[in-house]
């Protein structure tokens, strides 16, 4: 469509204001953070330029290593469970077995609550006399009753359980929508050719789902790296730093210890870890037809 001469101003305003927001309130602060990561600064007195020293300090910081490890575990376990779990649920519900609408609502309900509320709910569930332990006791499985959130070896998995509980329904909905738009005639052709369910799945459905899977994986990776709310509300990184993740560590350094440079370095690390996936996602999302 052509721009009339008088429209130029309007167009600039219509696009310009949102773009200005984006640049001033997102891009510029992000660049600032990168800049701050090269400083030693407590927010009030003068900042000292120290180059990459924050990053080398990070590498020798055992807490940073713990956090990295936890994010990696999160990515693997949470990632696999929520993506595969969501996919499996979607495939099952797609078959529209009896009561499928009810099941769908059941799995989707957790999305209605925030991660903070999710963290709280599961905090009580895992409390020493909470639902999980009471339930185990009621089922005669007393030997599994334990201090879920107080045990360094178990607590991260407990938090992941809570996160998966909430995430699986969301992934399921995405895949359900994607499954709906798989070409029916191809499936029918495959059935006519004698393919059973698994063959149809492997050769027709999954390839058709590939773009959705890619998107879901990308978003899951990005969210795994920046997860904060649920860890913060459930454990705050404890007990004794066993559930520290990059974001909780960054928070503590920034707003607990006022090491803004160090904290920004952690934020930059999070950015770098997600960058590859961000770029991949973007390249997929924006169609090439735009000039």
């Amino acid at each position, binding site marked *: *469509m052509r*721009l009339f001469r008088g*429209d130029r101003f*309007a167009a600039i305003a*219509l*696009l310009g204001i*949102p*773009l200005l*927001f*984006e*640049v001033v309130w*997102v*891009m510029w*602060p*992000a660049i*600032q*953070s990168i800049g701050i990561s090269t400083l030693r600064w407590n927010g009030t007195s003068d900042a000292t330029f120290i180059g990459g020293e924050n990053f080398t300090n990070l590498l020798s910081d055992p807490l940073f290593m713990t956090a990295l490890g936890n994010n990696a575990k999160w990515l693997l376990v949470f990632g696999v469970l929520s993506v595969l779990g969501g996919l499996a649920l979607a495939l*099952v519900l797609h*078959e*529209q*077995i*009896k*009561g499928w609408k009810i*099941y769908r609502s059941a*799995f989707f309900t*957790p999305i*209605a*609550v925030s991660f*903070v*509320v999710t963290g*709280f*709910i*599961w905090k*009580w569930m895992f*409390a020493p006399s909470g*639902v999980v332990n009471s339930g185990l006791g009621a089922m005669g499985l007393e030997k599994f009753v334990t201090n879920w959130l107080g045990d360094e070896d178990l607590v991260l998995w407990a938090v992941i359980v809570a996160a998966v*509980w909430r995430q699986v329904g969301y992934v399921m909905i*995405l895949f359900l929508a*994607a499954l*709906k738009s798989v*070409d029916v005639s191809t499936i029918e052709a495959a059935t006519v050719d004698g393919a059973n369910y698994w063959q149809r799945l492997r050769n027709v459905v999954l390839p058709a789902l590939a773009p959705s899977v890619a*998107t879901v994986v990308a*978003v899951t990776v990005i969210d795994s790296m920046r997860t904060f*709310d649920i860890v*913060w*509300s459930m454990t705050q990184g404890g007990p004794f730093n066993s559930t520290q993740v990059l*974001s909780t560590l960054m*928070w503590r350094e920034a*707003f607990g210890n006022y090491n803004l440079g160090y904290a*920004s370095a952690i934020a930059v690390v*999070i*950015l770098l870890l*997600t960058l590859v996936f*961000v770029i991949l996602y*973007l390249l997929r*999302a*924006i169609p*090439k037809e*735009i*000039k």
Partner: protein
Amino acid sequence: MTRKTVLPNRPRKRNVPLTTKLVRALLVVVMSIMSVAWLLPVAATVLTSLRSFDSILTDGFLSLAGGLSFDNFVKVWNGGAYTYMLNSFAITIPALIALLILASMAGFVLSRFEIPFARGIMLVMLAGNLLPQQILLIPYNKMAESLGIFDTHFAVIIAHVGFQMGFFTFITYNFIRQLPIEIFEAARIDGCSLWRIYFNVLLPVLRPPLAALGTLGFAWIYNDLLFALALIRSTENMPVTVGLLSLQGQFVSDYTALSASALISAVPTIILFIVLQRQFVSGLTVGSVK
């Protein structure tokens, strides 16, 4: 974007072999059990919120002893939940309105006019939404302080408007691209200015994606913790996400009160969910982000 086949994807009725029937029956059983397990935490929370703290201490979580009442809700409502909810709305509604207006404007211009570097601009905007929030927190904190808006709703609103702008624009952009160009051309021929086209032609048609974005956006902004936690300190300004953490400091191990506060805080999104589920889902599936 081409539209894929939208035929209902239901298996045709034909002679279903016994194995399939068995499998389906088994799946029903498994799904039923899983659904119960999935709803259990929420149900347990509802139950806990209706009981008294003492009865939990004596009888544990999985019992109905001690009678049920709404006392916890009243206690928590007066103990701060009311203020927190108000603050949440005071932040979410303005941010949402600003986002819907600005995103529809940007999407319109990007999709319907020959803008140089349109793809680049779109990339930049969407990238903003994918950055980890952590990279923005410290600068926001400092910017808010130097602008004198630290510890105000305004700071949080601006943060959300900036952060979500990309995704919102992306959605409106995709939608408007699919609209028949004729409606715009017709208006153009009539001599309408850009503003007129925007207000009188575009906005009425944009209702579906705006509804989807409004629903989804409400949930995201309402449920956000990080921006509010970084920018708000006084309890009278806290939205409900931060307020819950603060209530936890107050009620500590009084799970009955905390359950009640968690449920109260979830009411708006739950209502939104039930009433606008279709918009919610369509918002989620378009672009498949978050």
